């Protein structure tokens, strides 16, 4: 019986020209965005690989020079492009692509791609993810709004129910019919996506992420389908059903995300860049208590070093005081950076958490956050990379200052390290977090999505069960 109903719905919808052209347009959009995404990913990956090799070559080919001078020369870190960014480029256009890892400073990332674009950029980018998140729900609404309300208007609902068909069976059949039409678009889209990802070098390593992503999108579509059917069962006419479903779509997909930007900004405000820099400078110059000047702190440090090595003057030290002092400077700097960037990044994380919690009112927020996270293009994974780059900078500085301390003497900056010193430093090899790392951090989003899907199915069951013919 369920299959009969499903087949009837499927045939009826499939014959509708609007459905066919809508579905086709959607498929074209997904296909087009996948192709563009693949091209982007390959291009960016090549470009960044080349740059990574070049910056390493620059570093290694330094002549004999003072290690601290090499530390100032530094290395550039380039953000790798995640393979799954092909499907969802997330915040990638809005974060810098490179940073300079140099002595004394934790630099900001530079060159946000969105800054090098026309104002059309802010309308969003076409990715498979935006198509799935915004447009597929619309197709679902188009397919499902009249399922009950339309039949009610025409009087056929009364006839069908008078035949003794249980509402639950009717509901299941209709849902299957809609899902059948939908799968004509989504299955080819999913196959295209999987081929696109696995076909790329390195693509095989992301299969767990891809799998979870597919399951999440299915849950998301189930939520929309059930919600549409529930509204259709409630609504007196097809027109009311359509208006209500579209209204929900507008509120949830268009309005809620924007409103949340300003909500999260006011709940967890970030400092201005100038205030942030000033506070950091204060701590860097004056120590955490803000009283000791650099000279005073250096004096104290000098005394401590002399005491430690049991000598009376710097010239008697068996190691380079300049190296020790630089190392001490880095240590202090690291504490200051950890304090300030730590606080800032916590604020970002809290903003993202509030945005994710708002999934209570908008499933698209949960889906968006999960999709970006699985694609490796969310804020958290950008900060993960930024942090890895900073840790590498610190290890580089420790190596350079250690070289200086052990091989040089006193206050001397004339020491020149052998060029082999540079190649002894391991290159910066970034390892993106595992799928488990991502999933652990996005339990709420998965939970909300599950609750939305389950809740919508229950609501649909309830409203179909008590619908008036």
């Amino acid at each position, binding site marked *: 019986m369920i299959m009969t109903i499903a087949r009837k719905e499927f045939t009826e919808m499939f014959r509708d020209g*609007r459905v066919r052209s809508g579905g086709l347009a959607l498929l074209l*959009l997904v296909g087009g965005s996948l192709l*563009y995404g693949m091209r982007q990913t390959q291009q960016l990956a090549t*470009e960044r690989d*080349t*740059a990574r090799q*070049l*910056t390493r070559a*620059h570093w290694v080919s330094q002549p004999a020079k003072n290690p601290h001078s090499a530390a100032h020369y530094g290395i*550039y870190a*380039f953000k790798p492009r995640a393979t799954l960014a092909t499907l969802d480029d997330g*915040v990638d*256009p*809005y*974060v810098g*692509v*490179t940073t300079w890892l140099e002595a004394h400073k934790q630099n*900001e990332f530079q*060159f*946000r*791609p*969105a*800054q*090098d*674009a*026309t*104002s*059309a950029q*802010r*309308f*969003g*980018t076409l990715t498979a993810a*935006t198509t799935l998140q*915004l*447009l597929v729900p*619309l197709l679902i609404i188009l397919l499902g*709004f009249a399922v009950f309300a339309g039949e009610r208007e025409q009087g056929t609902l009364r006839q069908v129910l008078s035949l003794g068909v249980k509402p639950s069976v009717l509901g299941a059949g209709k849902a299957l019919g809609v899902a059948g039409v939908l799968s004509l678009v989504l299955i080819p889209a999913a196959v295209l996506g999987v081929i696109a990802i696995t076909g790329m070098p390195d693509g095989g390593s992301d299969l767990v992420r891809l799998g979870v992503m597919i399951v999440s999108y299915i849950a998301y579509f189930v939520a929309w389908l059930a919600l549409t059917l529930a509204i259709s069962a409630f609504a007196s006419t097809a*027109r009311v059903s*359509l208006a209500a479903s579209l209204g929900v779509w*507008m509120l949830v997909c*268009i*309005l809620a995300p*924007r*409103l949340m*930007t*300003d909500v*999260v*900004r006011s709940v967890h405000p*970030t*400092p*201005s*860049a*100038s*205030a942030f820099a000033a506070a950091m400078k204060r701590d860097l110059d004056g120590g955490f208590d803000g009283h000791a000047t650099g000279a005073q702190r250096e004096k104290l440090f000098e005394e401590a070093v002399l005491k430690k090595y049991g000598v009376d003057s710097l010239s008697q030290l068996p190691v380079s005081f300049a190296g020790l002092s630089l190392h001490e400077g880095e240590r202090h700097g690291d504490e200051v950076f950890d304090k300030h960037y730590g606080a*800032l990044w916590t604020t*970002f994380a809290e*903003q993202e958490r509030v*945005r994710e919690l708002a999934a209570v009112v908008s499933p698209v927020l949960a889906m968006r956050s999960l999709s970006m996270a699985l694609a490796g293009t969310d*804020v958290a994974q*950008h900060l993960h990379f930024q942090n890895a780059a900073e840790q590498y900078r610190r290890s580089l500085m420790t190596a350079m200052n250690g070289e200086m301390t052990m091989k040089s003497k006193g206050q001397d900056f004339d020491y020149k390290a052998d060029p082999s010193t540079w190649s002894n430093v391991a290159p910066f090899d970034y390892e993106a977090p595992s799928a488990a790392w991502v999933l652990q951090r996005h339990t709420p989003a998965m939970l909300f999505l599950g609750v939305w899907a389950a809740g919508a199915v229950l609501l649909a069951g309830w409203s179909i069960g008590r619908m008036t013919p």
Partner: protein
Amino acid sequence: MSAVSASAEVVARAASGTAHSPLRTMVAHEWRVLRADRMLLVVALLFAALLGVALWNGVTWSRFQTRVVGELAQADSSRFARYADTLAVMTPGTPLADPFAPDPRNPMTIGGARGGITASLTPSQLSMLAVGQSDLMPYYYRVTTGLRQAVLKGDEIENPGNLLTGRFDLAFVIVVLFPLVILALSYNMLSGEREDGTLALVLSQPVQLRSLIFAKLGVRAVTVLSIAAALVLAGLAVARVDLTAAGQLSTSLWWFAIVVAYTAFWFGVALVVNVLVRGSAASAVTVVTVWLVLVVLAPVLVNLVAQARYPTPSRVAFTTNVRTVTNDANKVADRLLSKYLVDHPELATAGTVNMDDFWTRTFMVQDTIEKTLAPYYDAFDAQLAQQQAVVTTARVLTPALLMQTALEDLAGTGLTRWQRFRAQTLDFHSRWQRFFSERQMRQQKMSASDLPSVPRFTYVEEPGTAVAHRVLSAILWLLLPAGALWAFGLSRLRRYSVAG
């Protein structure tokens, strides 16, 4: 049913001959019907609330930026006051022992990385009308004698997640939501009455379908525009914008003019859909599809085409290139002087340029780097200009993009004003560099009397007529399709079948 009763009233009045003019009666009744309909109340309240929130967000952001710019200017002026105090008690004759000493007699103390000055773009008075690109683009730069690349960095702190979504500003409400309000109120003006059976009844009276549709459209247009106008005026009052100040009034009037043009366009869409599509549900699907294509998809596709067709040169490759160029320039630093002097003959005659001076070498190297990188910068700007040309060409297809750009332009938060600011900053950067490098290379010390001649940055606004010119062109590009839609809709109205 309210529509029935109101239409019945039209019939009754028309029959008894007490009506003033049919159009006036229809307007009066349409207004009554709309008022009785909960739909208008809900939509109007929601629209008003969203406008209010958006204006508040705009005002908050504008104040934030104004405060930051003020603080930076304050910091600069107190630093210059300190230089003045120090220079006043210093004897100019004594030589500088250390070229790196933070001594204001040393030109590089004031001009270099430890000194410098802020070039900032103060938000315009009406910046509350659109956050635009101002959350993404830097609104101040720290200008020093360093490389152009070093000057042009420094973004405001913002969670990239927020940049991705964008702010909830007035431009978003007008560009994206306002059409929805219009379409929600007017997608079934004719199909609704026909489905209720009242259309034939009304038209059986000496009333033309054309007048009826004008009455319906007129009431709706006046309602939505009044809400927008009232709230925006209230917003301007709350933000204490002085409309009598130069340019503010005309900017506000241009704002209203383009909003009216945009309204005309979307009512044109509604008219055509009303005339062509029979059922209310089908009309709803059609208007949403049109909205989706024009507001959501078209700008995205235009951007995609522009970027795919004219990709900007890679910033990643640029970063490593800068390093290669710098390395090369450093290797030949000694040989750079003669080349440099060809471009700066005034220094050659002074005969005081000393290649052992650290800064002199730095300037030589920088000069070479900038010259080598110039083609890259030009290529970059050229590609961006091409992208912009694609967007401009596609404007008739993308009323949303047209509107967004114009609203940003009026608020002073768009790319045009920002690009102007960046260009002026670069210009100022060269003046600043020249001022300090020449002094440094001549080993000329700074004295208290030199301070007033240090270059200062003031952003020179584009003449208001230029903005007005662009907005006028946007209005025309909106009115063109709007006129076509109206003409088509009205001509097809004659063939509209009332029965059935």
